C-alpha cells in the first residue's frame, strides 16, 4: 500500500487515517492478517513505536483485533466496516460542500450541479 504522510501533523493520526482508508478501499480485507508492526513501519518508513500507537488506537475502536499468538487482524465485522465507509463518505461530502462554498456555490447550487452531472454525465 502507498503511504503518504505530511510532516506537519502527528504521524500516528495520519497512520490511523491511512489504514482506515486502506480498509475502506479494500486494500485490507475483512479478516485479513496485518503484517507485523515492524514490517508495516518499514513499509511506511515510520518509527515502529508510532505504528504501534496507531494500531493500538485502531484496536481500541475495534477496527483491528489482536490475537495473542498469531498477530493482528482486520475486523471481520462487515457492519462496522460499512459504518466506517458511511462516515468517511459523509466526511468527504461535507468537506466538498465546504470547498464549494469557498468558490461561491451555496449548498443548494452545489446539489443542483451534482444532480445535473450525475444524470447527464460530465460534459
Amino acid at each position, binding site marked *: 500500500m502507498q503511504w503518504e504522510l505530511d510532516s*506537519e501533523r502527528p504521524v500516528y493520526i495520519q497512520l490511523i487515517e491511512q489504514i482506515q482508508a486502506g480498509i475502506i478501499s479494500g486494500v485490507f480485507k475483512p479478516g485479513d492478517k496485518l503484517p507485523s508492526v515492524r514490517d508495516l513501519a518499514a513499509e511506511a*518508513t515510520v518509527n515502529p513505536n508510532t505504528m504501534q500507537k496507531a494500531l493500538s488506537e485502531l484496536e481500541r475502536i475495534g477496527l483491528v483485533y489482536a490475537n495473542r499468538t498469531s498477530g493482528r487482524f482486520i475486523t471481520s465485522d462487515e457492519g462496522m466496516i460499512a459504518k466506517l465507509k458511511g462516515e468517511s463518505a459523509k466526511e468527504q461530502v461535507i468537506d466538498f460542500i465546504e470547498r464549494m462554498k469557498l468558490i461561491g456555490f451555496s449548498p443548494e447550487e452545489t446539489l443542483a450541479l451534482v444532480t445535473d452531472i450525475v444524470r447527464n454525465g460530465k460534459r
Partner: protein
Amino acid sequence: MSAILECKSLTKKFTTLTALSNVNLTLERGRIIGLLGPNGSGKTTMIKLINGLLVPTSGTILVDGKAPGTDTKKIVSYLPEKTYLPDWMKISDTIEFFHDFYPDFDSKRANEMLDRLHLDASRRMKTLSKGTKEKVQLILVMSRNADLYCLDEPIGGVDPAARDYILNTIISNYNENATVLISTHLIADIEKVLDEVVFIKDGTVTLHSSVEDIRTKEGKSVDTLFREVFKC
C-alpha cells in the same frame, strides 16, 4: 537497568577549538533518536566519544553505565561516515570478520539482506561502487543485535531510493530494546522514523524532545523547527 547513554558535563577540546562543551544528555533504551545539527556542530565528535575513538577532555560519558572500552564496544554497533572495509576483502570475508569479532552478529540475517540486493558475496570490496559499499556496511552494522546503534550520516548524499532502502533496513533490523542514534543534517528525510530529537549547535545541546511533543505543542514539523533554530 541504566540508561544506554549518559553524558555529564561532557567537554571535548581540540587544540584550536572546543567541539563539545558541557553536554548533559541521557538517552533511554528502545528509541530511535535523531542527533541533529548543521555540519561542524559536534555530531561526529559526540559519536566518536561514544565509540571510544576520542577521550573526553572533561566530564563523563557512560554507555550502559560504563566508560567506553572493550565492554561497551561489544554492545555498540557503529556506522561511521567512512568506508572502512579493506579493499581487498570479499564481501564474504567481511561477514566472517564481523562474525569472528562480534558475538551478537547474525550472519544469516546479513546473507539474507545481501541476497535481497542480489549482491554476490564473492565480489571484492574494491569492485563495488561507493553506494554499494555503504549498503554492505549498513547491512553488517544492522545485522548485529546491539544495544546501541550509532549511525553517522547514514543518508548523506544518497538518492531517494537508496535513502528508503537505508531507512527500511534500519527499521526492520534494529533490536527491539535497543536505541538507534542517527546523526544527520537532512531532517525532513528522516523525521518520520524518529521518536526523539537532540538538537546540537556549536557543541552544546540546545533541545532534547520527543517528536510528537514538537508536533503537538509547536504545531510544526521538526524540520521547520530546525530551520528556525539554526537560521543563519
